[in-house]
């Protein structure tokens, strides 16, 4: 049901812009990049290092219905979450994670010294929130993703995780981008 339920928002669009300002609305959705961390791959690496790439198309996957009418795309928020880790040994393992896009890599997020454990949703960046964990350069890279989404381009994410020791199980890192499309109608 990508063809989502805009209920009356659609009315507004459909009335083909009767007001002086036309019609303008925002469509916001969380688009998620899911990284599967493999215990076997991590533990078989002498440095306990794991990396992977993943190519996504947020425009076509999450905003197919609206992207054609979008005037701009903004990423308002970035969060991450660790899921499905089973700490059988009880050992404390730390990790550094990085997330970037493209080649050469444009860094979006670096987080160091995290305990490997299941977490709730952790805020990495939010527009206007001073608690952001992103540098100015990383925020600029994040903002450029909006243009790529608007252009319906594939985005290749480069993710890596560097562990201090072996890990006990596979687990998942979910990076969620709050993507807002500004849709306009005449």
């Amino acid at each position, binding site marked *: *049901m990508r*063809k*989502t*339920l*805009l*209920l*009356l*928002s*659609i*009315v*507004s669009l*459909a*009335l*083909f812009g*009767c*007001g*002086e*300002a*036309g*019609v*303008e*609305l*925002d*469509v*916001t*959705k*969380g688009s998620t990049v899911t990284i599967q961390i493999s215990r076997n791959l991590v533990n078989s690496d002498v440095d306990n290092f794991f990396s992977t790439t993943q190519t996504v198309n947020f425009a076509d996957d999450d905003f197919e*219905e609206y992207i054609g009418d979008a005037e701009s795309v903004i990423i308002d928020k970035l969060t991450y979450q660790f899921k499905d880790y089973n700490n059988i040994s009880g050992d404390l393992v730390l990790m550094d994670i990085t997330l970037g896009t493209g080649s050469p890599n444009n860094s979006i997020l670096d987080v160091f010294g995290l305990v490997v454990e299941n977490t709730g949703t952790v805020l990495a960046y939010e527009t206007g929130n001073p608690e952001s964990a992103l540098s100015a350069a990383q925020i600029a890279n994040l903002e450029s993703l909006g243009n790529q989404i608007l252009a319906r381009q594939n985005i290749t994410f480069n993710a890596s995780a560097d562990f201090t020791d072996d890990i006990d199980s596979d687990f998942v890192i979910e990076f969620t981008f709050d993507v807002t499309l*500004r*849709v306009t109608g005449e």
Partner: protein
Amino acid sequence: MKRFLKQLRVLVVLMSISTFSYAQIDFDSFLEAGVADANRLLELYMQPAFEGFGNGMNSGWYNTAKPHKFLGFDVTANVSMARVPDASRFFTFRNSEYENVFFAGGSSVETPTLFGPNLGADDLPQLSFRDFDDIDNDGDFMEELIRISAPTGLGIDESELGINAVPVPMVQLGLGLFKGTEVKLRYIPETDIDGEGNVNLFGIGVMHDIGQYLPGEKLLPIDLAGFVGYTNLSSQIYVNDAQTQSADFDASSWTVQAVASKKILFATVFAGFGYTNYDVDFGLNGTFNTESETLTDPIAFNYANSGMRANVGLRLKLLFLTLHGEYALQEFNTLTVGVGISVR
């Protein structure tokens, strides 16, 4: 001017014929939110439009209290503008009234109706839709799937039109009979609208001179009449090319009025007081397929109200040509202007 004409076209179509074809509304998408939520949101969003139309239908019936003489007649065209009250520019979206849609910032929020201001996305609240079909198969039916700006209004009062009102055009014939009685007819036979639907109108009114029953009638400085009128407008607009889905609009109204007028040279001042009623039904009929179910006749709501109405107006008669205007105090105060030809 071009925008004004576009607005006028939209409004006229919206109310008198129905917007729903011209508006190119994607009803299937509407219904993805669930029938109950779609009904509630549409009902509140459209409320001033339908109520304004109901008020406007009861206007423009008369411009004098003096019925035509036998076989005297008039043909009159009116446009009534039912002014949308400020309180109807917004409606309150309450989370408790919806199953699948909610406002995340609180338990309720004010959001524009169709006749509200035309707000930009930064000024509109966002409504969140739950993943009630569990699209991601995670067993969580309550999580937020998407957030979308609440619908904005047309912003009519910000436009060249300058008045936030529902326009109701009307054409009618008045014919004098006998004993101070005049019958008025409003009629459009079922008429095809460019293959996209149809519309028909019927209205009948009777005005009767009651001054003739009063002692000393000849001494009365004014004309007095009683008036009863009924109007019904129905339209059907096809939503799909196969014409198996339609937006159906049926509005009826009636009014009972005491009317007084005083003619001075070519000017007639008139006033009325009485009771009015309207009943407007809107339905989306046919079979609609959402991604999860098939729905039959999914949207239906009704607006009805009644109350007192008082109006005052002025008619100018230049030979056979009449120009008139009136202002009515009622639920939606209504300004009517018109032109006509009147004989006897």
